[in-house]
């Protein structure tokens, strides 16, 4: 019993990290039709900047805020000065964001070197809880709660605020939204910044579990894509369900078929692509 509980919690906590990453990827695509390959860089740079802030100030909360806001600024600059020129041109967009992925990856190596780093956990969550014969790290429970709060917040933002209504209107029909006086260009920049913010948040929050290291940008990008393919591009609900699904699949896959670790993620993905090409919650 505890075995299943622990494994399920593991899967959900990893899934929440994936949700943070995929939510931005999905939002950006849903609104702007931009497949942002540099999204993995936002995650990695967020982790490194968070680590630098922790070394400087010792505060985890400052690290989370500082890193996410910095990356949000980086993201909005990238959107405003580069991506905007290539609006709806898919191939140039892909190449541009791919280029950014490499530039950021090398930049991170130049600044922070190649040694793997682990972000220290906030002292509040450094202990483990005892569940019967098992111990469970309280930080992972915190990640689950945090992920749910973020999901709730995004939901509210999208469904319950005027900005959300403008966003949904622009997703549905951008031209009419413009005609109605919605500043779609500003919305693009803000959504891109929000996506970058969420990815960096994932980088700092995930830092105490998986660490920050060269190559993490490519690894999480791959997982992020699997999540949005399963959940459906452009859907927040899809990002959450997809994230949890991939987190659980990955975890139980490793437990029961340790040698087939990646297969247990990619096989369901291929299956979903075959049956529902737009993903579980995606729209055609």
């Amino acid at each position, binding site marked *: 019993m505890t*075995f299943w509980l*622990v*494994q399920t919690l*593991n*899967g959900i906590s*990893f899934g929440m990290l994936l949700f943070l990453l995929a939510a931005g990827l999905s939002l950006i695509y849903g609104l702007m039709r931009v497949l942002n390959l540099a999204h993995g860089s936002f995650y990695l740079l967020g982790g490194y900047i968070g680590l630098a802030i922790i070394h400087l100030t010792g505060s985890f909360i400052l690290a989370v805020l500082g890193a996410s806001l910095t990356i949000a600024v980086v993201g909005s600059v990238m959107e405003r000065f580069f991506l905007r020129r290539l609006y709806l041109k898919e191939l140039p967009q892909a190449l541009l964001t791919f280029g950014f992925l490499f530039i950021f990856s090398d930049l991170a190596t130049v600044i922070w*070197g*190649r*040694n*793997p*780093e*682990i972000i220290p956990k906030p002292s509040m969550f450094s202990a*483990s809880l*005892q569940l019967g*014969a*098992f*111990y*469970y*790290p309280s*930080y992972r429970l915190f990640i689950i709660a945090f992920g749910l709060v973020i999901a709730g917040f995004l939901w509210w933002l999208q469904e319950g605020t005027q900005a959300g209504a403008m966003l949904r209107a622009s997703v549905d029909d951008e031209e009419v939204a413009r005609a109605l006086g919605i500043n779609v260009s500003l919305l693009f920049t803000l959504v891109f910044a929000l996506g970058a913010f969420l990815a960096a948040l994932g980088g700092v929050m995930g830092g105490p*579990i*998986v*660490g920050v*290291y*060269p*190559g993490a940008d490519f*690894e999480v990008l791959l997982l992020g894509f699997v999540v949005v393919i399963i959940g459906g591009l452009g859907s927040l609900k899809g990002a959450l369900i997809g994230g949890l699904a991939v987190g659980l699949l*990955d*975890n*139980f896959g*490793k*437990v029961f078929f*340790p*040698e087939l*670790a*990646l297969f247990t993620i990619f096989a369901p993905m291929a299956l979903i692509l075959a049956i529902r090409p737009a993903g579980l919650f995606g729209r055609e």
Partner: protein
Amino acid sequence: MRHFSAIAVAGLAVLGSLMQPASSQEPIKIGVMFPLTGPVAAQGAPERDAVKQAFEEESNTVAGRKIELLYEDSMGKPDIGLTKTKALVERDKVNLLLSELVSSVGAAMAPYVNEQKIPWISTVALASLTRAEKSPYIFRFVPSSYQFGLVAAKITKQMNWKKAYFIGWNAPPSREAFEVVKKVYGEENVLEPMFPNVGTPDYAPYLTKMDAKADGIFAAMWGSDSSRITQQYTEYGLNKKMPLFGIASFTSEEVLGNMPPDAVGVMSAYTYCGTLDTPENKQFVDGYKARYNAVPGSYQYMGYMAAKMVIQALKDVKGQVEDKDAFIAALSKVQVKGPMGMASFDEHHGMVADFYKLTVEKGKDGRLQNRCGERIAQVKDPYDMFP
């Protein structure tokens, strides 16, 4: 006339005596190639620094001849490593190579080195270079995976382990180490061997499976993964149930900086222990610190020792490195007392050296360090056990 010929004879004699040492006054050229940029630069550059240190300790002069080190950067890539090696041999005419730690680069260099018949002392992990593809020209000062697997199995057996879990990368070194552990322990005593991928972000699913009674866990993964699995091992309370025993450089000095504070008590067995109290190690560590302001780890040790072996062999042949056969014969039977004790090469030119049990502890400055435990003297690659 007689006078003149006497002067001529004297002159010739002087000339001759000048010419004799002149040839041996020419510097000995050594090609030193390591990955200085790219993914393995964090290991390659410090190792190159340690090679440099070893020659500086001899004032860059061995047996009366100047030593000239020619540096190249392989970038950890086989094609580039091979090209740079060719440049060292054909353009710079080096006398020998003291190069490389990346297996794929080593595999690319081996056929060329054999064709050129140039002595090559490496720290390439690729064990086949001193096994199936052994060659008179290739020497390796680095343990093979069978060698460090054997040491881990032996030391834990001395600690009375009977049953253990095994988790390692799905890669040749950890698979080979597992074969040795399985042979020493018996297949039924190694519980649920698991081989996740290199760079697995989260080891928790594997660790939480380990709920049977066992004497400990063997872990064979390196770099960022060894600090990650250690952290997750303590987070899930496994440290309260059974000890973690890392294979090879699992707790090496370069990863200790990233280990969580709870790593105290994690063990491993390897060929270098930073805190070992010998005059040779003091000279090595202090010299490295003074030069580069960092604590050396196992990569630096192997580079330093490879250079020491070369230096001693050059002394044994009185600097006559041009006589290749004599130099190779000298290298084959060279004995060096290094920071960790006596070291030599075996009949396949693999390394023979002392290994130590390492236990992570908190040092006086609050940082993690290795405590040196039992020594296993003169460990040789078990060729007879795993041909």
